[in-house]
């Protein structure tokens, strides 16, 4: 989890046949091991304890509003790109009870809800998603009020990244400088290599914990040649990325186009369904609800994921501020690519492409931004 410079990192070779040992050593170290599994015709992040749980031989085909999982016969453990759900769900749960209060003779007694937190290992987290964690860290841990729910979970995770060998049709990580190779924010970063009937991983370790885990799994030191083979996998992956976003001046581009006709045009297609914000690994909006029992003797405060696409999100006395679909679409796009910079000094988008794949209306953020950029040329 510690940020480390690549130069001081250690490199190991882990044979695919020893991968079960890696899982065993993660679990043996007290972690709940979470990673990719195949469920409901998609890659779903869930508990993983055996190599058999991994999506061996599955790949995903992604484009705007379409995702198809395919069996491709490859021996690869990590031959897919990204599923719909991000790691956010484990660190920032969709629903969380914050507070319980009970009425007693002496008045109301409030108790903060502290659900026990288990140590988690994130196995297979992609480079863009490492950056998403860095973004969430900025939003939720820095400043006057750190989020206790996120902090309790975040402080205990073991991060085992997997560099991308394949890229998705909606990925644009190189445009956002977040991938396809992990540079920081991990304990271990794996590159899967399948050549000449051999199948192994080049493992980069940035922390002592990472060293310990990989050694337990019988990892041995990698040669410079083997390390450069891993680098070649990442270089080849970067070449495959077809979707691009011109990010030059994007913050100001959007900020000076708040009355652009494009917002209305896109709102004609936008379903205001919220899917883009919910799949986005950095969207953090929540709402807080209070519930009571029938007698009014106990109450609880619950928070759950919300989205700027709902009317309630901008509701103040008298009505919703963003009551048109164009104002809501604009809020989403400008927050991710423009006002996020003002708030947090970084981009709110990491280029994972999920909002494009999982938008039922096939709206593509990169096309939207490009359209606004192009309109300024004429």
């Amino acid at each position: 989890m510690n940020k480390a410079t690549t130069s001081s990192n250690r490199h190991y070779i882990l044979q695919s046949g020893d991968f079960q040992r890696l899982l065993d050593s993660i679990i043996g170290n007290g972690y709940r091991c979470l990673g990719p599994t195949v469920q409901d015709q998609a890659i779903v992040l869930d508990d993983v304890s055996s190599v058999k749980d991994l999506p061996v031989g599955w790949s995903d085909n992604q484009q705007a509003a379409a995702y198809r999982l395919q069996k491709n016969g490859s021996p690869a453990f990590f031959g897919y790109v990204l599923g719909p759900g991000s790691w956010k769900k484990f660190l920032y749960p969709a629903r969380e009870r914050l507070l319980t209060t009970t009425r007693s003779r002496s008045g109301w007694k409030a108790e903060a809800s502290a659900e026990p937190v288990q140590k988690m290992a994130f196995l297979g987290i992609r480079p863009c998603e490492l950056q998403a964690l860095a973004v969430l860290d900025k939003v939720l841990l820095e400043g006057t009020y750190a989020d206790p729910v996120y902090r309790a979970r975040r402080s205990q995770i073991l991060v085992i990244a997997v560099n991308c060998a394949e890229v998705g049709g909606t990925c644009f990580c190189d445009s956002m400088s977040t991938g396809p190779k992990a540079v920081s924010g991990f304990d271990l970063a794996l590159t899967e290599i399948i050549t000449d009937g051999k199948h192994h991983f080049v493992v980069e370790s940035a922390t002592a914990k990472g060293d310990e885990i990989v050694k337990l799994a019988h990892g041995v030191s990698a040669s410079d040649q083997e390390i450069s083979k891993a680098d070649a996998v990442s270089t080849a992956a970067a070449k495959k990325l077809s979707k691009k976003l011109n990010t030059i001046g994007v913050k100001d581009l959007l900020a000076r186009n708040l009355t652009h006709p494009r917002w209305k045009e896109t709102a004609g297609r936008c379903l205001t369904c919220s899917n883009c914000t919910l799949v986005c690994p950095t969207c953090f909006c929540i709402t807080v609800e209070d519930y009571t029992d029938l007698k009014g003797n106990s109450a609880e405060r619950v928070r759950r994921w919300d989205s700027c696409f709902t009317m309630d999100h901008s509701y103040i006395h008298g009505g919703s501020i963003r009551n048109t679909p164009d104002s809501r679409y604009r809020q989403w796009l400008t927050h991710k690519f423009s006002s996020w910079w003002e708030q947090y000094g970084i981009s709110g988008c990491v280029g994972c492409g999920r909002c494009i794949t999982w938008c039922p209306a096939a709206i593509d953020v990169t096309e939207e931004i490009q359209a606004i950029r192009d309109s300024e040329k004429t």
Partner: protein
Amino acid sequence: MAQHKKPKVAVWKFASCDGCQLSLLDCEDELLAVAGEIQIANFLEASRAVVNGPYDVSLVEGSITTPHDIVRIQQVRKQSKYLITIGACATAGGIQALRNFKNVKDYITAVYAHPEYIETLALSTPIAANVEVDFELRGCPINKYQLIEVICALLNNRKPNIPKYSVCLECKQNGNVCVMVAQGVSCLGPVTQAGCGALCPAYNRGCFGCFGPKETPNTISLSNRFSDLGMKKDDIIRIYRTYNAFAEPFRKESEAYER
């Protein structure tokens, strides 16, 4: 509502299947607790005992389909402090509102041996089209937890947590995989109000729209998407014409495809 006095609650039935009332009985675990906090004054599905009005709360199931219904709902309104409609029939006219798209006389002649005995209105209408309604609970049938939430909120003088946003929010909160994107299955979730817990997508099926239109539904865009997925005109008309066929956004969308 005063703490010491139990509110008098009445349940009324109009044109409906009784399914929503049964949701109340289905509250098994919670039913005793609910019964302890309210006085059930009129609930024929549960008991023959009837207490006269006025009532603090009336839960109304069913749509208005006969001249007699109109008289009756006006009486219910007069006797009730709060009137809450429960279910798709009461809030949108129900599945029986399919007749609104045709001439009801044709049906009567086709179905009944003595059509002259049948006294019915041309339209099946929601309660709110006839009298003022304080709160509408959606669903076909309603979700019993939402019903308990509304009763709880009423008893404690707070706003019920009944969101008007899309089923997609619940779908994603529950960690379902979107069936429309991952399988190309048509789903009404993006235009339908949440409340069911995204039940159908959890079982790999598209949403049927039981909870009716959400806030700001963009049916035009969704229908375009359905066409892209290969749905024919007739199928698009049909997908909007179920339990909430007469709810305005669904009605308009299906009619647009009839032209």
